[in-house]
């Protein structure tokens, strides 16, 4: 028998091309304030922040198997954190955004400890209940504006255009950052651990994979990402109301984007975000039918094409733009 030399390969030609294209795109987008209308910039802020949210949800559900319907908790916490640090405590805007993200992550610690007592579908509802608790607490505290909410007054310290550009660049960093951080995390041992846990938790545990710690870490990362995105979203929107900031629709959008694009892949949420915004532009006049369609497509994709749009592409071509899989290749 001849011994065959094997090596572990990660980068492939399509991924290298993808990297090049991606970098070029990021540079073009970063120069947005030079070539884009204000309205376009505002739409792009929504695109980038939603992309970040979707990547976080994907990290939780697609990689760690934690199906959360409560990520809106962190969007809201990010928003109210921003209000707290910028308006009440007078920190500069950028610092407030960061502080809000950290605060959200700290609150995620006890949240995870509670939520992790549940599994599967009950875990999903549990996270939703906890989000509702946060919403109710905020609604009942009048200093936080109660049910009618508050407006970010600190925003008026900066002139409109500068604020828009600042928010835009921040959103771009957050969006690209979410993709990059997810990719980097999955390339390391965490990625292997998650794959093992996804395949069989028991086996992973018996092999010494720290299951609880791994899931906990992922939950905190997602909390940070969602809180950060939430703060940036409301830095743009300015008016924070509990009903909207803690709305389950945030999670519904995250789910739609990830499912359509492809769960458990990094490319998926990118494609999903594009599809989502395309649909939103074309169907905005149809009211609730738009959401019916969203729901129907998500259901259909889950049952028929479980791996989403990117899954269909990857199955045909074998491409991987963000190669987190370690391929075993024969090396001559």
């Amino acid at each position, binding site marked *: 028998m001849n011994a065959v030399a094997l090596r572990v390969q990660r980068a492939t030609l399509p991924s290298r091309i993808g990297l090049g294209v991606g970098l070029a795109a990021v540079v073009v987008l970063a120069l947005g304030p030079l070539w884009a209308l204000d309205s376009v910039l505002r739409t792009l802020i929504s695109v980038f922040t939603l992309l970040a949210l979707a990547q976080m949800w994907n990290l939780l559900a697609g990689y760690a198997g934690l199906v959360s319907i409560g990520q809106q908790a962190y969007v809201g916490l990010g928003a109210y954190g921003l209000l707290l640090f910028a308006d009440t405590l007078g920190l500069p805007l950028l610092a407030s955004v960061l502080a809000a993200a950290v605060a959200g992550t700290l609150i995620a610690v006890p949240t995870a400890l509670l939520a992790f007592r*549940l599994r599967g579908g009950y875990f999903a*509802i549990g996270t939703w209940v906890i989000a509702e608790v946060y919403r109710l607490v905020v609604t009942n505290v009048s200093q936080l504006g109660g049910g009618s909410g508050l407006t970010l007054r600190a925003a008026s310290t900066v002139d409109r255009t500068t604020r828009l550009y600042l928010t835009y660049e921040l959103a771009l960093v957050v969006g690209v950052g979410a993709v990059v951080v997810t990719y980097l995390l999955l390339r390391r041992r965490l990625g292997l651990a998650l794959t093992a846990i996804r395949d069989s938790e028991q086996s992973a545990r018996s092999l010494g994979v720290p299951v609880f710690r791994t899931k906990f870490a992922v939950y905190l990362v997602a909390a940070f990402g969602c809180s950060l995105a939430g703060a940036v979203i409301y830095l743009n929107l300015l008016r924070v109301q509990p009903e909207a900031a803690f709305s389950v629709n945030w999670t519904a959008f995250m*789910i739609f984007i990830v499912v359509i694009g492809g769960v458990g892949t990094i490319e998926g949420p990118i494609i999903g975000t594009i599809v989502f915004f395309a649909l939103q532009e074309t169907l905005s006049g149809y009211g609730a039918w738009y959401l019916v369609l969203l729901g*129907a497509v998500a*259901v259909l994709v*889950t049952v028929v094409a479980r791996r989403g749009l990117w899954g269909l592409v990857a199955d045909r071509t074998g491409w991987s733009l963000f190669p987190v899989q370690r391929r075993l290749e024969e090396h001559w």
Partner: protein
Amino acid sequence: MTWVNVVVQGLLLGGLYALFATGLSLMFGVMRLVNLAHGDLSIVAAFVALAIVDAVPVNPLWTLLVVVPLLFGVGYLLQRGLLNFTLRGNDPLPPVLVTFGLSIILQNLLLEVFSADSQGLDAGRIENASIRVSDRLAVGWFPLLTLVTAVGVLVGLQLLLSRTRLGRSFRATSDDPEAAALVGLDHRHVFAMATAIALATVAVAGLFLGVRTTFTPSVGPTRLIFAFEAVIIGGLGSIWGTLAGGLVLGVAQTLGAQLSPGWGVLAGNLVFLAVLAFRPTGLLGREVPA
């Protein structure tokens, strides 16, 4: 209001919650499926009743004769035609995604067809009639009827599970679907029957709640949350636990509302979180939710 009165009102409300929780608990017990559209389906039932009552002026309680069999059929078809396909393999994602998607679809369909207006089912004099138990305690006829109905449904379900062939099929299929196939049980049919029964109970619950309070297309998730909290507080794997959980939740909410009007639901949530933190198996439960 005296505190006794508050607790009694809470128990009566709790009966309704127990009824909501029953269907959720049954589906989870038989096939480990959590139906996130559970609450929304109760709203569908209420709207169907509303449509019937608009066309034919009867007391809404009569619509049970139509709505319950209707939702029974819908449940069977839903499970057999859609949800069974999400249960293949051990992936927790598809059932959550599909039922969540269903929830969004139902809410927005109802919104388009019926508008966001608040609706109510008028059951006439029975709604406001009450029994004088003592000088300071009056028990409403309708809430009492609700509690009695809830207990009745739970007793019926318990009997179904323990004494009938279908009940044995439920338990066997839930234990070991492959061995169940070896003894001739078709899990697709067994699961569909479980969902059918679950939705039938949801229809009853939806109707009673529709009489008791107003409803809108988007209030489904709130009911799901109450049903879920009742199940967890009471404990998994026990029908009487579901009743207990509902009662505790109802009392917690009414006590909370007594302290301050906005605190009712929050009080219930906090009790749920406390149970989750300190006694995850619930009051009467036999399994840990994790």
